[in-house]
């Protein structure tokens, strides 16, 4: 148990990413592929947030009562802001990709009346 608890975030990350990857590659349904994509990205976001987190750390904003200054920061008591900022960008990218993916899936559905990859392939080769 003592081995698992400190690494719990990373175990969740691995589970999420593997679920997402499996869903993206092995599922035949286009919507399930999109869902897998979103799960995969969530896993990566959680990974980045986990590497920036620290025990008992606060947000990286200097406030009145904080016992550190800009020039002499108490690094142990603030989370790493960089990973969080990076993930803001990654979330935006992920949402945009998901949007484009769903739009394309909808177009495919209008053409073939199906989300199933095999059925679409059969339709296309006919």
């Amino acid at each position, binding site marked *: 148990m003592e081995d698992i608890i400190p690494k719990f975030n990373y175990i969740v990350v691995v589970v999420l*990413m593997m679920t997402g990857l499996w869903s*993206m590659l092995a599922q035949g349904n286009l919507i399930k592929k999109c869902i897998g994509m979103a799960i995969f990205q969530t896993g*990566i976001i959680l990974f980045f947030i986990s590497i920036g987190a620290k025990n008992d750390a606060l947000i990286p904003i200097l406030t009145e009562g904080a016992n550190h200054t800009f020039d002499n920061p108490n690094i142990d008591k603030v989370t790493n802001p960089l990973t969080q900022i990076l993930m803001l960008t*990654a979330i935006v990218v992920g949402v945009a990709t998901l949007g484009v*993916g769903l739009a*394309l899936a909808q*177009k495919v559905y209008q*053409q073939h009346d199906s989300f199933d990859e095999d059925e679409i392939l059969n339709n296309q080769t006919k």
Partner: protein
Amino acid sequence: MIKHLPIFIVLAPLLGAVFAALTSWYRPKLSFPVVLSGLFISFLSSFCLIFKLLNSESGIIHYQLGGWGDKGEYGIVGIQITVDYLNSLILTAVTIISLLTAIFSSQSVNRELAGQQRYFFALFSLLVTGLLGITITGDIFNLYVFMEIAALSSYALIAYGKGRSYMASFNYLIMGTMGACLYLLGVGFVFVKTGTLNIENLSLLIPQTLQASQAVFVGFVLIIVGAWAKMAFFPMHGWLPNAYTYAPTASGALLAPLATKVSVYAMIRIMITVYSIDYVLKSPNIQTAALLLSSISILVGSFFSLTQTNLRKIACYFIVSEIGYMVGGAWLANDPGLKGAVYHIIADAAMTSALFMVIGCILFRTGQVELKKLDGLFYKMPITFIALVITMAALIGVPPTCGFFSKFYLIQGAAQAGTWHFAGALLISSLIKAVILFRIIEIGYNKVPNPAKEGNKTIPRDEAPLSMLIPTLIVTLSLIALGIFTDTLITDFIAKALPEIPAP
């Protein structure tokens, strides 16, 4: 003004995209000139930058976004833009080809996507922004963002093709997102160990102090595999042929030469600058695997191109095999191999661009590019046909063209590293391309008897309009020009761009 030159390269097409989308509400016809001027400014800036670079002593130009800079003990803070000999060449190639493709595509877009030109050109400009951003940035996370900008606009550009292009674009989206996510994960691993994302900082940290770190090694593998998925390297090449075949002519002409090559550049940048050649040489398992995969990639691309009947699909499978050339050359990790790989990025961008432009010209006039329906093409479109033959000759590697020199360096590199399967794959793929060239000549020139000799029977000349023909000819002639000036290119730019490689 001159200090801010590097940012203009990325900013001009970005603003072009925004203004093209905005002005189109007011007057739709304005979007094309706006995009064109944006690309032209970008081209001029990259050209000036080359001269600035040649005059500078350090051979590297830094630009700090937003005035953030070197904070002494904290290292470099903020996003940095870096221009050196390696990416200045690729920047110029991207800007020239995108400018010519924009001119080339105006007519075919008017016909194929009537009423949607404004959105198309806005996306076109956005894609160029992404590609230039990947090339110019000095920050590995910024590279991811630009990668996704380029990828998102290319999904939309491909989906403009209607019909099967939706499904092709969807497959590309799944593969591309997977690649980008793996890349991002790799960046995370590197960031954990180094605490920085700046390429220059990383190049100081990783090769010296973190050689043995497992996390950094995992990051390396993830970044490389992510880049492979983006560039359609075997076995992740499945999306490419359909995506580029069913895309509109103009999208194909822009995406095919640039999108994959820029990913190859990103891979080479990570390999030689962030991780150093030493690091690559110290992971022999991956090197062997990469070389084997590139040989397979070359062979698969070549053999599949032989089975296709559609000229556009043949060209797409050529891209798969050319990717094998560049990845293989880079992973040989010796001097001629890397020179060949970097030179081939430029050469292949020009060759693929010429090929897709020629195909675009034929499509514009005849509406299809099925091989068996191209009979008598020489009499109908003589200039286009000659351009096609020159391009194919370059792809095979006939001496005065650029294809010969890149293959020369690559085979030399393969011989030096003793990787004979790679050299063999290169030669086989050349032979297969020669077979396809002769098939094209047979169909286009010999199949129909010469109408001049028959007397009464003539095939009317029907060339593509000048706005398509001139860019095609410029790119085709540049294949020969690149071949003639190989020596200048290699000694003045590529040799300076590459780090010193320990002799075997």
